[in-house]
């Protein structure tokens, strides 16, 4: 026996069975993996077709998701160029999620700064009719990276403005200088009054005015005390006024009684005047009778005068 010959491996019980088991296990693993890949790629899902029209297909890849509220509801199946030069993005939407898409849904293709673009669907009114199979919609495109140069230009302009503001002769520097002057004046004699009035002399005038006002108030206090004594004291104006008012009230009562009497007199006078009025009417008729009688008497006198010896010569002698 050769010493270099490797020793034969010990016999294995149920070797063929174990080998078959391993082969079946491997076959199951491979077949299961293939089926899982197909499932993950959506090969067994019921789908409906949605066609998105875009201006540019840059960044769009087969297999990328169509999301609704952050949830993937479809995936890009194919990308092709239409006859009008626009890009047709054919999206397979899972049938179980298709109810999220309505005729009023809006689709966007947004490119972020990092990563591939994302196709998103937005549905505002969920009561609208469902999106039909094979519907064609225009996708709204937005590019974050395209906005970066504009943002940088704006920021640069902002920084320039800030530099202008904060320069040695800029407005911020002037404002700070003014603030420094202000704080100096605040800390100086006169304080806030100097700041408010502009000069120390004016501030002193205000202080003097205040002092005089205080003296005036002191005098007013004395006057008020005296007034209090004279008005509200025992022999003040107010008690006297009170008594006067009482007396006035009594006088008013008497006046009221007098007025009542006058009122009765007036009523009597009114009755008398009514009677006089009636008498005046009777006097009218009497006067008419008297006047008639007088006219009759006058006529009678005239008649008598015509009679002799009472006749007069009525002829007028002219000179």
């Amino acid at each position: 026996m050769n010493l270099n010959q490797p020793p034969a491996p010990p016999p294995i019980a149920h070797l063929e069975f174990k080998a078959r088991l391993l082969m079946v296990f491997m076959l199951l693993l491979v077949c299961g993996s293939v089926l899982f890949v197909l499932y993950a790629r959506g090969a067994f899902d019921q789908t409906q077709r949605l066609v998105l029209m875009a201006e540019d297909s840059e960044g769009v890849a087969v297999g990328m998701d169509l999301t609704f509220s952050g949830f993937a509801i479809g995936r890009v199946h194919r990308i092709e160029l239409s006859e009008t030069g626009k890009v047709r993005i054919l999206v397979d939407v899972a049938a179980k999620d298709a109810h999220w898409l309505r005729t009023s849904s809006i689709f966007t293709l947004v490119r972020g700064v990092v990563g591939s673009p994302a196709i998103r669907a937005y549905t505002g009114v969920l009561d609208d009719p469902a999106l039909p199979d094979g519907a064609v919609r225009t996708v709204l495109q937005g590019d974050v990276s395209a906005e970066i140069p504009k943002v940088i230009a704006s920021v640069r302009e902002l920084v320039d403005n800030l530099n202008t503001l904060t320069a040695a002769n800029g407005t911020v520097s002037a404002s700070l200088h003014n603030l420094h002057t202000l704080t100096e004046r605040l800390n100086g004699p006169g304080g806030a009054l100097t700041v408010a009035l502009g000069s120390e002399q004016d501030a002193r005038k205000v202080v003097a005015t205040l002092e005089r006002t205080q003296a005036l108030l002191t005098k007013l206090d004395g006057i008020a005390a005296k007034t209090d004594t004279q008005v509200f004291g025992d022999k003040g104006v107010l008690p006297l006024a009170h008594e006067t008012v009482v007396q006035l009230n009594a006088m008013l009562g008497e006046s009221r009684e007098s007025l009542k009497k006058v009122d009765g007199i007036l009523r009597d006078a009114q009755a008398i005047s009514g009677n006089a009025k009636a008498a005046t009417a009777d006097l009218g008729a009497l006067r008419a009778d008297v006047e008639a009688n007088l006219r009759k008497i006058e006529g009678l006198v005239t008649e008598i005068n015509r009679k002799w010896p009472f006749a007069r010569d009525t002829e007028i002698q002219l000179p």
Partner: protein
Amino acid sequence: MSAAGFTHRTLTLSGSAIRRIMVEWWHLLHLGASILVLALSPSSYDRAYRNQLAQQIYLNTAPILLGFTVVCALVTVVLTRIVLVTAQSYGLSHYALQVVIRVLVLELIPLTAALFVALRCTIPDGAELTAMHANGQVDADAGYPLAFLRGEVLPRTVAGLFSGLTVAALSSVVVLIVTFIASYGFSLSGLPGYVRLFGQVFSPAVSLIFALKTLLLCLTVALVPMASALFDMSPMRDTRSSTVRTSAEMRGLVRMFVLILLIEIVSLVGNYY
């Protein structure tokens, strides 16, 4: 020695070395093709050879399956945590799982499975063939007897291929499960998104390249050590190149690494260009 003479000698040696390498690769290719033809021939799986085949398949696969899977799971947990934490710190957590699946399942698992099977099974199997030749059990001078090829070489080759495929498939499944658990915990709420992400990574082209790469890597680690061992037995090999520093195992390892490198480069080009 003049400069012209030195140059002439250097060029002559380089030319002969390149010619020798080309001849060796051609014979390796021929032997590999012969083994493949035998592997695809139904007569190679007669009852006479079936026991040997079952034994090699079992011995080359079962002992390493559990250990490699556990190591893969542990490495996956560590790598997933590193990638997730790093991605979160940069605000790119959405891409973390995609990176983990791409790096681990697509790139690392097939390569490490193939290398592990090579180091654990196929290179020792090649050494066994060389030892058998050294013991005089094989008379390679008169050509390789068919019984030797079918009884000794083919079972080891098929077992190596089978072992590589099984280890790669099981490790990929375990890595996917461990990655999901490391990311979402023991909750099924993230499963639909994870499955969708997996589907996005495994596009038809990537799936085809992944399958072809795994198959070719396993074929490489199964065939090259056997073919190298057979080539080293043959009278065609250049005995001048066989020194202590360039033993049969070492030469087989180098040839295998070269092929693995080529396959990896081609798969990377296919995936990312």
